[in-house]
């Protein structure tokens, strides 16, 4: 294992410290417990958005703290959800009295830790609502399982709900917007390589030179099945088709197309995937109204990508377009 780190146990602390130094005009970093808040938070009268999860998915979540998106991000250890004793003070630090929305990726650990934190924050008099993101179509959704994972779509939920909060929506309204995004976004991913968790020291899984994993998540876990390497166009179809089917996207609808890198794949390859995805959508008569291409929800240095599609309507498009100013996503200001 070769990584630009000093000590596997200090990776998160040092990385978040460096992040805070590089973006001091946008965020404040709290240590012990560690969490990141938007400069100047709480914003008077505004509903606050808090998200978090295991580290290793950067820029998610801390990279999305700032105007028009998150008010706080709570990083756990690598691939390990944060604990209530981080989430509670982060929640308290950004609450203006208008309430706090927890945006939680649907993993047992994240759900349980945020649930505990929400209960305790509520006991302290803070209104908290929780939205679970579960966009991964690779995972069967069933009452009897842990349900679908939250993956790439999370960044779209955070952006759009953040815009709703910034325009002054109430907690229930912001939660409603976030739930609307969750209902309308689906994702599926592929890995060309595993990744190495610093404290583990060995790759999460190994792939032969001609193998890829279809249906991966973002924690270096193996996917649903392993197939022989294929062309970018063929892989794009394998990812996009189930996404579109699950969303039941019809000709004439408008979508946001998001090609997300897992961390170790060159941007140039993401555009090759984007190209084919846009072609497939055009063939189906679907209009790509907005696009996002880049490394936003990663899995350390894993090679691969995910494709997310969000069904748009005028309101979602307007909220997507609203100004945002965070370390990793910025426009309109």
């Amino acid at each position: 294992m070769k990584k630009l780190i000093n000590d596997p146990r200090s990776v998160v602390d040092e990385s978040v410290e460096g992040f805070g130094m590089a973006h001091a005009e946008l965020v404040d970093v709290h240590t012990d417990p560690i969490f990141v808040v938007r400069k100047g938070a709480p914003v008077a009268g505004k509903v606050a958005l808090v998200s978090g999860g295991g580290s290793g998915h950067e820029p998610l979540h801390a990279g999305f703290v700032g105007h028009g998106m998150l008010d706080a991000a709570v990083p756990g250890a690598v691939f390990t959800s944060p604990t209530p004793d981080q989430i509670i003070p982060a929640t308290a630090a950004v609450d203006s009295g208008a309430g706090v929305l927890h945006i939680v990726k649907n993993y047992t650990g994240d759900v349980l830790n945020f649930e505990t934190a929400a209960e305790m924050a509520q006991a302290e008099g803070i209104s908290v609502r929780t939205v679970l993101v579960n966009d991964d179509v690779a995972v069967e959704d069933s009452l009897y399982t842990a349900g679908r994972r939250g993956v790439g779509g999370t960044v779209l939920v955070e952006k759009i709900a953040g815009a709703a909060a910034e325009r002054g929506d109430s907690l229930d309204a912001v939660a409603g917007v976030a739930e609307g995004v969750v209902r309308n976004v689906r994702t599926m991913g592929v890995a060309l390589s595993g990744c190495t968790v610093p404290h583990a020291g060995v790759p999460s899984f190994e792939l032969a030179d001609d193998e890829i994993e279809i249906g991966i998540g973002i924690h270096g876990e193996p996917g649903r099945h392993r197939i022989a390497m294929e062309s970018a166009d063929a892989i794009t179809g394998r990812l996009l088709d189930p996404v579109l089917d699950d969303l039941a996207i019809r000709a004439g609808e408008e979508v946001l197309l998001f090609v997300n890198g897992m961390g170790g794949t060159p941007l140039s390859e993401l555009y090759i995937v984007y190209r084919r995805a846009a072609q497939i959508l055009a063939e189906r008569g679907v209009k790509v109204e907005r696009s996002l291409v880049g490394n936003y929800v990663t899995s350390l240095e894993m090679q691969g990508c995910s494709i997310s599609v969000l069904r748009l309507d005028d309101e979602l498009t307007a909220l997507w377009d609203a100004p945002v100013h965070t370390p990793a996503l910025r426009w309109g200001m």
Partner: protein
Amino acid sequence: MRLGVDWAVQWLTLSARLMSEHREELIALDRAIGDSDHGENMDRGFQAVMEKLAQTPPETPGAALKLAAMALMSKVGGAAGPLYGTAYLRAATALGESAEIDAAALAGALTAARDGIVARGKAALGDKTMVDAWSPAVEAADEVLVAGGDAVAVLAAAAEAAEVGAVTTDPLVARKGRASYLGERSAGHRDPGAASSALLLRAAATAAGFPEGAAE
């Protein structure tokens, strides 16, 4: 025979030692069907338990388990943190403020712990989770209690049953937790949380004086 705070402190101390010794093994189990962090999380959590024990030595078994619950909840993270946190907290509540606990109290605490895990995680027996270690442990403890066994015998039975329970997860297809994402591919691997649970219950028996490995 009744167990006091010394036993509880010894249990946690041995737990910390076992989590450190088995750190890599638990990481490897989690790597196969999860995200490679279970051993790291448990080791970090029990280091925190040891620090807290040194800072504020508890006066009753219940206080010791409550301290552990808080440390685990705030330092483990992931799924295991809240689940073990709840388990130890419910066990502590069941033990109350007694300075010494007997077999019945102990069996009751184990039941409370298991019920806490189920209440939080909503997993059933056979879902390939730590419940598959805790449920047989609770049943074995209850049987020994009914048969008139003492506290040590209750813990020994629980430890053995948990170990067997952990092994029974090997062929199962996971329905809860991160391993469930793998579907059929999760079969053929031991659940890391069930494995750590067996180690923790083994530590409880050893702390009570039951000779290590005596069951085999």
